[in-house]
C-alpha cells in the first residue's frame, strides 16, 4: 500500500515536472524541481538502498522524457547518489526524523534545499566531466541558487504531504526504529 502510493506520487511528480513545470515561462532558466522534492521525502523514510533505487528510477524517467537536451543517465546518476547519501545520513546520524516525531516544515524545507543544492552541483559536475560547454561558473551559480530556492519553496506542497503519507501508512512497529529496517520500502 505504502509502496504503491509512493510509486504513484513519484510518477505524478515526474510527469508534472515534465509537462507542467517545464511549461511555465520562467524568465530565469531553472524552475522548481518537484522530482528532487519527492525523492527527498522517500529518502527520509526509506532504507538507503530503496532510496537509491527510487532516485535512480525518478532520474531516469526525467532523462527519458522530452526535451532530450542532456545525455540519458545524467540525472539518474546524480539523483541516485543524492538519495542514497541523504538516506544514509538520516539513518546513521539518528536525527529526529520523520520516522520518529513529526518533522517541522522548516526541517523538511532545509533538507530539500540542501539536497537540491547538492543535486544541482552534482549535475553540473557530471556536465563538466562530459565537456558540456554550457556549464560555466556563472550559469552554475545562478541555476543552483534559483533552483534550490524554488525547490525549497515547493517542498511544503510536495515533500511534506508525501512524508506524512508515508508516515501514516508505515507499519507501527518499525516507526521508531533507527538503523536498517528489514524489508523493502
Amino acid at each position: 500500500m505504502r509502496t504503491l502510493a509512493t510509486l504513484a506520487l513519484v510518477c505524478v511528480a515526474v510527469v508534472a515536472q515534465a509537462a507542467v513545470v517545464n511549461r511555465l515561462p520562467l524568465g530565469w532558466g531553472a524552475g522548481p524541481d518537484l522530482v528532487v522534492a519527492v525523492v527527498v521525502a522517500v529518502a527520509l523514510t526509506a532504507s538507503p538502498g530503496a532510496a537509491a533505487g527510487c532516485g535512480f528510477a525518478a532520474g531516469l524517467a526525467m532523462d527519458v522524457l522530452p526535451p532530450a537536451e542532456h545525455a540519458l543517465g545524467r540525472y539518474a546518476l546524480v539523483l541516485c547518489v543524492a538519495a542514497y547519501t541523504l538516506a544514509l545520513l538520516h539513518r546513521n546520524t539518528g536525527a529526529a526524523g520523520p520516522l520518529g516525531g513529526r518533522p517541522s516544515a522548516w526541517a523538511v524545507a532545509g533538507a530539500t534545499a540542501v539536497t537540491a543544492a547538492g543535486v544541482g552541483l552534482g549535475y553540473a559536475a557530471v556536465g563538466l566531466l562530459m565537456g558540456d560547454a554550457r556549464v560555466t561558473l556563472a550559469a552554475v551559480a545562478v541555476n543552483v541558487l534559483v533552483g534550490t530556492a524554488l525547490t525549497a519553496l515547493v517542498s511544503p506542497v510536495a515533500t511534506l504531504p508525501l512524508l506524512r503519507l508515508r508516515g501514516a501508512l508505515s507499519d507501527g512497529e518499525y516507526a521508531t526504529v533507527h538503523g536498517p529496517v528489514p524489508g523493502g520500502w
Partner: protein
Amino acid sequence: MFRDSTRSRLFLAVLVAAAVALLVLDARPGGDPVTSTARAGGELVFAPTAAGVGWAVAPAAALVDGLRQSPETAERVAELEQANAALESQLQAARIDERRAEQLDELLGLAGLGGYEIVPAQAVTRVTARGYADTVTIDVGTESGVRPDMTVVNGSGLVGRVTDAGPRTATVTLATDVGSAVGARLEATRKIGAVTGGSVPGGPDAELTLELFDLEAPVEPGDRVVTLGSHEGAPFVPGVPIGTVDEVVATPGSLSRLARLTPAVDFASLDVVGVVVRGPAQDPRDSVLPPRPEKGDQS
C-alpha cells in the same frame, strides 16, 4: 557513522554503473538503439500528457485574457493570432525561397527552385529541469516528417534547430543556447560570420553574439543578419533573419569582430513555430559553384 549493509552498497554500485553506462552510450555521437527506444517510450507518456495539460490550461489562459477583454474578443484575437502566425510562416517560407532563387538567378541564371515545406508546431516546454540548456520541446516529430538537424523558424526569424526527434515530439536547441553556432551573413554587405548563443570570451554580454571573420567589414548598429545556409540545407537553410546588430565591439589584436545582436525572435514568448522539413527539391550549389575559400559550410 555511515553504517550500511553490503547488499545496499552493492545495489548502489550497480545503479551507478548502470547510469554511467547509459551516459557513455548516449553521449557517443550517432543514435543508439537502447537510448532512442527509451526516449520513444518516454514520449509515449509525455505527448498525451502535454496535450492534456495544454487543453486543461487553455481555460486558465483564456481567463487571464478575459480579465482584460471580453471573452469573445479574446477568442477572436487568439483565432486571428493563430491565422497571422500561420500566414507569417508561409510568408517566411516564400521569402526564403525567393531569396534563394534570387541568389541562384544571379549566380547561375537558374530559376524555379522547389519551395520549402514547413510543418507548423507549438512549443510545449520552455525551461529544462536544471536550466542549463536553452531548449524547447515542440509537438511534432518524425511522424510529421521532422528529423534532427532541421531549421526551426517562426514568423519573425530563426528559432533554432532540431537536435532530437521522436515520433510525436522533437527537441529544439534555440539559437541562444551556448552550444549553438549559426553561419551568418550581413544583409547589406554580404559579409559572413558566425552567430553563437550567449557571450563569447572577450565579447559583450549578450543573448546572441556575431563574430565577423572580416576585420575590415563595415558593420553598424542596425544592420540585419540572416543565416548563411548550410550544405544541403541542414541544419540551417539560408536567408532566415537572425537579428539586428546592437553594438559593435572593437577588440584590438583580435582576429574577428564581435557584435551584440538583438534576436529577431522573442524567445520569451515562443509559441507557434515552423520546422522547415524540406528544402529545395534540388540543391545545385555544390555541383555548380566554384569553390570559394571563405565560404565554408558553416553550421
